[in-house]
């Protein structure tokens, strides 16, 4: 089996200036940054301490812009003197499609994986729907290696920490 066979694509994407791909390997999550030169980071399932994400405002801003463009295009369609100016549909339809896709994908978000030494940002996961799916898949793999963290264990560790501080 070649090394490539072990990898399963988890997510791909990124911002304007960064491309990232995530692959699930046998024992690690492979984070690939870059386009013509790939930089690899391997986050082993045994070392992953947590996954964090929070919603960002990007999708709201883009959706507002799309709504504005759609409003203008509707005004353009209605501005025809004798008949509707159907040329406005060339703007309205693509915007409406993008708007619908964005609604389906959910709000944009920032995702990070915490290990003991770092918090690795994952711009490849850009929306909450993808984040939830990624969380499910990652949790399955991490818990197969580490087991499940219980509330009791977390509470006990917190109490120990507090007593160490005092």
């Amino acid at each position, binding site marked *: 089996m*070649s*090394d*490539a*066979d072990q*990898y399963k*694509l988890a997510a791909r994407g990124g911002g304007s200036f960064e491309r990232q*791909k995530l*692959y699930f390997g046998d024992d690690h999550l*492979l984070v*690939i940054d870059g*386009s*013509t*030169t*790939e*930089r*690899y*980071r*391997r986050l082993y399932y*045994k*070392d*992953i*301490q*947590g*996954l*964090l*994400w*929070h*919603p960002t405002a990007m999708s709201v801003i883009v959706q507002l812009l799309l709504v504005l463009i759609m409003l203008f295009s509707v005004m353009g369609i209605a501005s025809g003197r004798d008949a509707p100016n159907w040329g406005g549909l060339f703007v309205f339809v693509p915007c409406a499609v993008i708007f619908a896709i964005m609604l389906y994908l959910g709000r944009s978000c*920032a*995702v*990070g994986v*915490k*290990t*003991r030494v770092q*918090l690795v*940002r994952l711009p490849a996961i850009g929306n909450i729907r993808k*984040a939830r799916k990624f*969380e499910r898949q990652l*949790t399955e793999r*991490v*818990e197969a290696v*580490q*087991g*499940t*963290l*219980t*509330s009791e*264990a*977390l*509470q006990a*560790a*917190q109490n*120990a*920490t507090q007593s*160490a*501080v005092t």
Partner: protein
Amino acid sequence: MSSDTIKWHYAIDDERLGPVSEAELAALAEAGTITSDTLVWRSSMPGWQALSTAPGAPKGPWSKPATPPPLTPPPMSPIAQKGAMSTPVAARPNYAVQELTLYALNRPSHILPLPSEPVVDNYGKRESKVAHHVHLYPAFLKRAGLAQGKELLEADESSCFYHPQFAATNMCSHSGRFICDLCSTEFNGEVISLQALSDIKAKGKVSKLDDTRKLWDDIALALLLVPFFAPIAIGICLWKWKQGPTSIVRKTRSRYVVAMVIGLIEILLLAWVFTGGLDL
């Protein structure tokens, strides 16, 4: 007696010099002409003494308070870093506290309080201004395993190849050398030394250790956007063909094939145009 009236004698290379005033002696010390070990004498002293111990002698640069070491330790080599981990746990009182720290994703300098559940939603808004979703795994509570070197107790005990002062605890399956816990690591299910791991990485034959790769097939495809670069693109494909897929997640050389086919078509089209095939 004022300090100006005290006359000091000093000796350099068994030659008696002076007398000089205390201020002049201090100036000689500052200039480095005399050092803390230079023998000095004045009338009230029973015999010659080193300048640093002579009573009433002027203070030289050696008497300045020692500069405390920097708070931040200097950078260490990887082996030394691992060695530093051998500090006993007891010497790090807040180790557990430091480990159970959760930083906000949007503001990495802000610490979130620890959640009471492993999976929480809308968390940490007060600290980081943004509600986080947090999912913690058991490794969050796991303490770091501290590698320690075991001191050699008996003369006939095998010592580590890299740390002769420590007893060997493993044998490197790559080089066969005896190594201590500080030098050991696990690779592909075998215990090897860090040096062996570094050698394997340098040879570049194990993709698991690669940290960067240039995607020559993508570069070749990008070059084809300008038809004049088609020969270069084909050259790259032929040059890198033996290496196989350039990304570690690709299984085939399909991009090379595509690049070569498109490149050949572009070359043929260019040749046709420049040989008058296109009647402009």
